[in-house]
């Protein structure tokens, strides 16, 4: 047993000398990255948060805390994850992930790129589909509280648009009304296009 204890002690000393044991004591980003991925590029159904608008991140965290954002995965994961956030953590996480360089998911259908781009930039006036560009910007980069969409994964964008039509996230004005005029094919095209936008 003594020998084992000795080994353990030696191991601990080695570990301690390899680097600071407390690498990120101020901002526990790994509370976030075990789902959103190392630099917040998104993982499984957890969306990319790297490069997202800080005001948008803050607003979403607050709406998770207040349980206003009510889509199924928000309820399943984020209501719990945000329940104990302090205002400092909300700001800290928002600033940290906003400062990470976003990388495009590139997971949409390439055949739909042209259609998606057209809808994004021009809308479909005859069907009352507004042009996404007016709020989200020419490179879908977002501004202030309006989220960056460029490079988000196809599946995430599609799911959000679908869920507005299924009655979730109704507080996220004006998106429920925007989604209402989009056909499934158009949602596919938009989500595909956006996944490739740098």
């Amino acid at each position, binding site marked *: *047993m003594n*020998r*084992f204890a000795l*080994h353990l002690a*030696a*191991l601990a000393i*080695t*570990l301690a000398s*390899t*680097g*600071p*044991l*407390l*690498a*990120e*004591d101020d901002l*526990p980003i*790994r*509370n*976030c*990255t*075990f*789902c959103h*991925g*190392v*630099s917040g*590029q998104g*993982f*499984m*159904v*957890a969306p990319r948060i790297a490069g997202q608008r800080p005001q948008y991140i803050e607003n979403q965290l607050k709406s998770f805390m207040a*349980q206003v954002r009510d889509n*199924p*995965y928000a309820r*399943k*994961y984020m*209501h*719990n*994850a*945000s*329940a*104990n956030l302090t205002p400092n953590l909300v700001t800290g996480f928002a600033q940290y992930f906003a400062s*990470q360089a976003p*990388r495009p998911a590139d*997971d949409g259908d390439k055949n739909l790129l042209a259609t998606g781009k057209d809808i994004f930039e021009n809308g479909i006036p005859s069907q009352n589909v507004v042009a996404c560009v007016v709020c989200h910007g020419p490179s879908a980069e977002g501004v202030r509280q309006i989220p960056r969409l460029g490079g988000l*994964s*196809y*599946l*995430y964008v599609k799911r959000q648009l679908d869920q507005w039509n299924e009655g979730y996230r109704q507080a996220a004005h004006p998106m429920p009304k925007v989604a209402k005029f989009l056909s499934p094919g158009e949602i596919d095209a938009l989500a595909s296009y956006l996944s490739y936008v740098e």
Partner: protein
Amino acid sequence: MVLKVAIAKAFQGEDRLRISLRSALSLAAPLAVAFSLSAPEKAAALPSFARQTGQTCSTCHTAYLQLTPFGRLFKLNGYISGGGGPYGASGAQDALFDPPLPIAFLWQAGYTNYNRGLDAPTGNYSVPSPNGGFSGQNNYVDLAQQASIFYGGKVYGNLGMFAQLTYANDRARVFGLDNLDIRYTGQFTAGNIDVLWGITANNNPTVQDVWNTVPAWQAPFLDTPFAFGPAAGTMLDSLASPSLAVGTGAYVFINNTYYAEMAAYGSLTPTMQTKLGSPSPPDPAFTIDGLAPYYRLAFAPVWGEHAFEIGTYGMFANILPDRTFGVGTNKMADVAFDSQYQWLTDEHAVTLRANYIFERQSLDATTLINGGGNGVNYLRNFRLSGEYVYNHMYSFTATYWQLTGSSDAVLYANNINYSPNSAGWVFDVAYLPFMRGGPKIWPWLNTRLGVAYSLFNRLDGGATNIDPINCPNCRNAKDNNTLFVYAWTMW
């Protein structure tokens, strides 16, 4: 440096049962040897993880033990991710523990029923365990099959630990160290490359792995302590049991997709193993001479609600069979390939797993000891498993396993046709009421109530007359079919 520290040179150790080579040495060994008394004790979905992260079990498990991709990342992050206490949206306001204590408990009870009693028809079979209280009939109720205490979670900073202390009837009623995995992890981003890295010290090869294909964490997740199993087993399967080999390794997980790990394992001394709580005497069948390198590579892309993995792992060891010195060593080379696919939604969770371990045994030492037998043998363990979980509540699992290998008249003298070949199915149906959170008073309670049925197509060389030495023409593979009803509670 780290490697040197964590693993003593040439640990000398003794071990446990289940195993191939030993059975060759004791031809008259009772069937007891074949019982997989060393079925690895597994445990997870630790309630302490739930407290630490604020998440329900269903974030990291489909139906425990099966991990989701988030569960895998949590483990690779070294059990340090938090966000919970005090306490997730559904959590009780329990100011007693702030921060939440990383302590959890496990209790398992089971009822075992064999297709045909061990004493039938001649009654000359020995009971499976001196401590088991097996009735000699074909029913057995064990109300405390296993009880464990865990330390699961962050220790300090980037240091985290999963440590399990277990009392079990099948572990010689000793309270001792079960699974252990200590991790120190970090992460960084360089350009377009995200790197999550870690070092781990653990006490059985593959216990550090995050895919439920590997021996330490594969299905079935819980078995009766008196489960039958083939006398032969690969080194990786056999060592995936607490403290038979201890080791340390380093890994990287790149862009949440590419995994690479190198580790080295050595054996502990018998004294050390006994002190850690192994049955006495510990099974020495796979005593490692020096250090054995272990590797793991995996490609694991995820997209939306889908996760895929294909990988390889393996271990190369010089083995002192039964800790016999002076006869040289057996050279064992285990190379495994595995794959896992998951489709996970809020409602449905499908997991498909495949695992194939190929082992080349160069038995210089064993042939010398036995004065015969093949110089080189092969063993192949193939396993396919599918799991469907509905609503995080009802779990259905089917597993097919198959062990094939060279015939050896000395090594497998007890087996029909001197063959290790065995194959069978395990079906498991379970009800997990609390994956989305337990009752208000203790939201971290979780329970798995299940029924498992093990079906043997072949065992130890054939479908019929499987124990020709001890009981000629009296026992068939299907006699060993086993029904197992269990309750597995964690809190």
